[in-house]
């Protein structure tokens, strides 16, 4: 698994041609809503892989 493959797959899934320009200010106040986090955890469980190391 290479960095390029991960980036390529992410751009493909988001239908983007290049990495979006986001700076610290954009995400500083960003709070992950509970439904989004619940969807993420459900997908994580479904992929029944070893839990990724959280923060």
């Amino acid at each position, binding site marked *: *698994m290479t960095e390029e493959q*991960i980036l390529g797959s*992410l751009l493909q899934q988001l239908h983007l041609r290049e990495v*979006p320009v986001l700076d610290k200010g954009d*995400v500083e106040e960003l709070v992950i809503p509970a439904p*989004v986090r619940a969807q993420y955890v459900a997908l994580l469980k479904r*992929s029944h892989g070893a839990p990724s190391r959280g923060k």
Partner: protein
Amino acid sequence: RFSQNFREVAGRFLVSEASTHLLVFRMEQRLPPNSELVQAVLRLFQEPVPKAALRRHELLSPRSDRARVTIQWLHVREDGSNRTSLIDSRLVSIHESGWKAFDVTEAVNFWQQLSRPRQPLLLQVWVQREHLGPLASSAHKLVHFTTQGPSGARQGEPQLELHTLDLRDYGAQDNCDPEAPVTQGTRCCRQEMYIDLQGMKWAENWVLEPPGFLAYECVGTCQQPPETLTFKWPFLGPRQCVASETTSLPLIVSVKEGGKARAQVVSLPNMRVQKCSCASDGAPVPRKLEP
């Protein structure tokens, strides 16, 4: 037929007069546990055609002395309906006799996907005209194979040969031993490989979760099958240690819309290795059994 929308479609019904018989093979204990099926061969004994019948045939149809033999796998489903799948088909000559081999690996692959308790392996043998049409000969009527007897000991009885590899020798391990360094002698296994997303410049301010993940990778080598096997299947490449099952990786990313950033979940397919296996390049991939 009387609809104004469809031009009448004329057709001809061609009599194929196929002769068929059903072979039943009990498969319990035929496939060793923890083994990989390399090939399944069905051997049928074609009985010699009496000379007088051959002479009569040559007088009637000098042009064609072959018949088409087709093997189908018969699946009797829970609801009692039948489904057949074409497995192998070839022409045989009425001038020949003796053992004829057909590759029925796909039928056994299908059978292995049945839920237990599994029915016996049912193979339908069709003997048909070489081709349909007014000029086709009736050579197929002269092709006879020895059928299965009740006791299973008759001379020329149909044989089902199963070639397998013992995965204790030719397969992969599960996870690598984290204490042991991977060397040339390490047998194929799944090794931990942590991908640190936080360390990737492009992920900054974009990928919010996870900061990294265990991707795993397949390392080590595989034992090559014995010479006899590789000789029989020259198209098979060497057995290699590959990721045979993978799983997706969910992420939470920030997406900017209308000047404002919001969080979104996205799932990247085939990002993590679930299982490593030893597989030959060029080996046929078993077809999935349709529900």
